Each structure stands twice: as structure tokens, then as C-alpha cells.
């Protein structure tokens, strides 16, 4: 097997290690659109990163944190529904990102690579960062697991139990932002949320407990990476979209199982 394929596999499997456990919370808390909004804002993060010559993943992460904070403030100060606010932030930042990139004509940017990812151009450094990022996120998630689960089941009951709900929610948003910054290179900003929610949704009918659902989601994500990458090699299709296609097919398969 070629080196680039090994690196792609390592990166994809590292990502599914964290996207599974984090994805189930995105599904439980109905935050798919929030993930999408952060992903859309990533393009503005890239544009600003290029402008100020920052590390691109860092600038994407910082912008995602800024968007999450903006959302929390808007939710408190506005009577508009969350999905409206998210739509404004998602499309506003995507449009600003495209405008900002158009100003930088001396730098040639492969926009497609950022939108849809380029898993086959992943370097050794990237693999290192993805595994490091995934393990860091996973250990933080393990630390807040019980409180986050309590909060996801019912925020009021968790608050009465003494859980610092706002703080835990912020940490969770930060983890989603971190995963998006790390995953951008692999699947691209347009498809990142898919890797969070599709494996989690596929795991739902096979799980008897929250922890089991997280574990199965991780396995489904890893299977999607394996199937998608080999299909991409065989059929010469783009890697990121092939992985998401594989995940979608696995989800459809999972729906054949009767609900228990």
C-alpha cells in the first residue's frame, strides 16, 4: 500500500475516534445545525488566517470559538429562534469568507480542497496533529462525560444537581470547534458535520445505553473511513465525499433494523 494511503487511513481513523463520541452528543442535543454553522465559518477563518499569516487550523479554531460566543450572546439578547440566528451566522460568515478570499489575488487558494477536503494530501505532520487533537478532545470529553450527559438528558435537572451547565456547554462547543478545525483538511468544511452526525445516527438503533451508542458510532465512523478510502482508490473518486457516501450508505443499512 502506498504511503499516502496509509497516512490517509491513519488520519481518517484518528478522526473517527473523536467524531463518534462527540457526534452522539451533537445528535442528542440537536446541534447538527450548530456544527454546520461552525464549519461554514471555517472558510472565513482560513481567509483571515492567510491575511494575518497565522496557522490555518488555529485561525479556524479561533473563529469558531468567536462564532460560538456570538451565538450564546445573541441567544440571550434576541427573541429570534436559534435556527434563525445560526442561519445568519453560517451564511454571513461563509459569504464574508468568500469575499475576503477574493481580495487576496496574489495568493492562489485551492478553494475546492478546503470545501471538500483532500485526505490524500495529508502529511505526516497532519496525522500527528489529528491523533494528538483527537486524544486531547477524547480525554477532555471523558472528564466531563457524566456532567455533559446529565445536561443533555435534561438541562434543568442537571442544573439543580449542581452541574455548571453554561460552562460544560461551552467546553462542549469548544470541542466541536476543535474537531472541525482538525477535520477540515480531511473531509472539507462542507462535509464535516456529516462525520459527526451520520455515524451517531446509524448507531442509535443498535444501542441500549449512551456509552454503547458512542462506541458503535466510533466503529461506524471507522468503517466509513475504510470503505470510503478504498472505494476512492479503486474508483478514483474524491476521498472526503467517498467517506461521507460510505457513511450515508451505512446509515441507510442501519435503518433496515426494526426499532426496539
Amino acid at each position, binding site marked *: 500500500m502506498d504511503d499516502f494511503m496509509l497516512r490517509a487511513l491513519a488520519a481518517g481513523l484518528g478522526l473517527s475516534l473523536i467524531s463518534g463520541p462527540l457526534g452522539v452528543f451533537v445528535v*442528542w442535543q440537536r446541534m447538527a445545525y450548530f456544527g454546520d454553522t461552525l464549519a461554514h465559518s471555517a472558510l472565513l477563518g482560513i481567509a483571515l488566517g492567510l491575511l494575518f499569516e497565522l496557522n490555518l487550523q488555529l485561525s479556524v479554531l479561533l473563529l469558531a470559538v468567536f462564532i460560538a460566543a456570538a451565538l450564546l450572546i445573541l441567544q440571550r439578547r434576541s427573541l429570534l429562534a436559534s435556527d434563525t440566528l445560526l442561519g445568519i451566522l453560517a451564511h454571513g460568515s461563509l459569504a464574508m469568507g468568500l469575499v475576503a478570499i477574493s481580495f487576496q489575488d496574489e495568493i492562489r487558494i485551492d478553494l475546492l480542497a478546503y470545501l471538500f477536503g483532500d485526505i490524500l494530501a495529508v502529511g505526516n505532520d497532519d496525522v500527528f496533529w489529528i491523533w494528538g487533537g483527537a486524544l486531547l478532545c477524547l480525554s477532555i470529553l471523558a472528564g466531563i462525560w457524566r456532567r455533559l450527559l*446529565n445536561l443533555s*438528558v435534561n438541562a*434543568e435537572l442537571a442544573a*439543580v444537581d449542581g452541574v455548571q451547565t453554561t460552562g460544560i456547554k461551552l467546553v462542549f462547543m469548544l470541542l466541536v470547534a476543535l474537531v472541525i478545525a482538525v477535520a477540515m483538511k480531511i473531509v472539507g468544511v462542507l462535509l464535516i458535520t456529516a462525520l459527526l452526525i451520520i455515524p451517531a445516527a446509524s448507531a442509535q438503533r443498535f*444501542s441500549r445505553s449512551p456509552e454503547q451508542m458512542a462506541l458503535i458510532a466510533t466503529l461506524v465512523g471507522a468503517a466509513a473511513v475504510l470503505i470510503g478510502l478504498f472505494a476512492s482508490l479503486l474508483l478514483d473518486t474524491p476521498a472526503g465525499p467517498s467517506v461521507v457516501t460510505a457513511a450515508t450508505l451505512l446509515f441507510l443499512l442501519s435503518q433496515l433494523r426494526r426499532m426496539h
Partner: protein
Amino acid sequence: MQTDPLLLGKGVGVTVRGRDLLRHVDFEVRRRRILTVIGPNGAGKTTLVRLALGLSTPTSGTISRAPGLRIGYMPQKLSLPESMPLTVNRFLTLASTDQASLQRNAAETGITKLLDRPMRDLSGGETQRVLLARALMTKPDLLVLDEPVQGIDVNGQSELYRLIVRLRDERGCAVLMVSHDLHLVMAATDEVLCINQHVCCSGHPDTVSQHPAYLDLFGEIDAETLAVYTHHHDHRHNLHGEVVRDDGDKRHG
């Protein structure tokens, strides 16, 4: 001997966007006492519960709570994420992982047989009992129950009120309970706080039910004709829904 109150509200008011939800409410929750808050829809009962729980703060007045106060809360309704696989057992362990107290609370509220069932498959009445069991998991000093008998038939309601009184007796906790009618809750309460944004009247349930402000609010007709229909059964149902033969003395209405 009087002990310090667990919760003491003085001149409590809540104003949201220029509208008064509560004004000048005084209340006191003492150990081993059951306080029932009644009032019509929109009277501010839920606002008062949220204040007692510490989920929101008053815009005027003060609420002081006993240091280290542990609260067990039973919400009026439970909204769960449907996509989360969650058994009753796992739901209870979110509050505390103490297995011995889990078994004891499950037995007391009659949900031992439900422990392995998924939360989303429970009926309304079963959910209420699971919520009460969860409220007990934190070994609370104060139980806050928001319309605890909602969705439960009349026989089940008096059964649940008897259980609440028993829990108060055995565990020595205080109870702050919200109800929209006084009739059934009468026997199970030490004190009544009747509110409609402000305190209309308060005191012993017998006094309150004769108070002009109470009759104004709920109507004299209601108070007189809606007396609970009393009749005799030769059996009753325990919390598991099983038939228990009466020995003749312990009839219920």
C-alpha cells in the same frame, strides 16, 4: 424549637420586560414541613419554583437558603432527547451512582420493575414516579415537586400524596409542592401559599380554603360543589398497580 428555615424569601419579585410575574412574595420552607403553592394558570407558580431551585434570581427582594442545601427536583414534565438510548436505571444514576440508595428509592416509589425499561416507553404515571425516585437520589433536604400528580388518576393521586407525606416523615425532608387545586392536596400539606402574582392568602389548608381571597380566585361554587367525590372500594391499587384487598378500615375516597 424552631430551626432556621431551609429557604426564606422576603419581598420577592420578578419582572420580565416590564411585566410583573411575581411581586412582594414572602415564603418560608422549614425542615419536615410541606408547603403547597396553589394558584390559577399564569399565577407565577413555575416562576416561584425556579427561584426556589436557584435556576433564576429575583429582580427584587431576597431569597436566602440554608448553607449546603441539597434539593431534589421533580419537574412538571420531562423532555428527553428521543434519540438517546436510556434505561430508567441509567437515568437514575445520572443523579447519583449509589446502587443501594437507587434500589431503595426504586422500591419506595414502586418502579423496581421498570428499571430496565427504556425511558421513552414509560406512561405518564410511570414517568412521574421515576422522576420522584430521581429527586430522592441526591438525598435531598428539600423536595421541590412541580405538579407531581399530573397525568395520574384520582386514586393514584391520593396514593402519591400519601407517599410524599411518608417520605417527609421517614427522611425528614421539607417539601415544596405546586398544585393547581387544593382539594386532593389538603390532607398532605401543612401550609398553603395561595398566589396570583402576589400572595392572596396563606396558612393552614383549612383556613385557606375558607379565605375570601381563595374563594375569589377559585370561586365559591368550585369550593363547595367540587368537594371530592367520596365512595368506597373493596380494594385499592398499590404503586405497582397491583390490587390490594382492603381490610375494611382503610378505605379511600
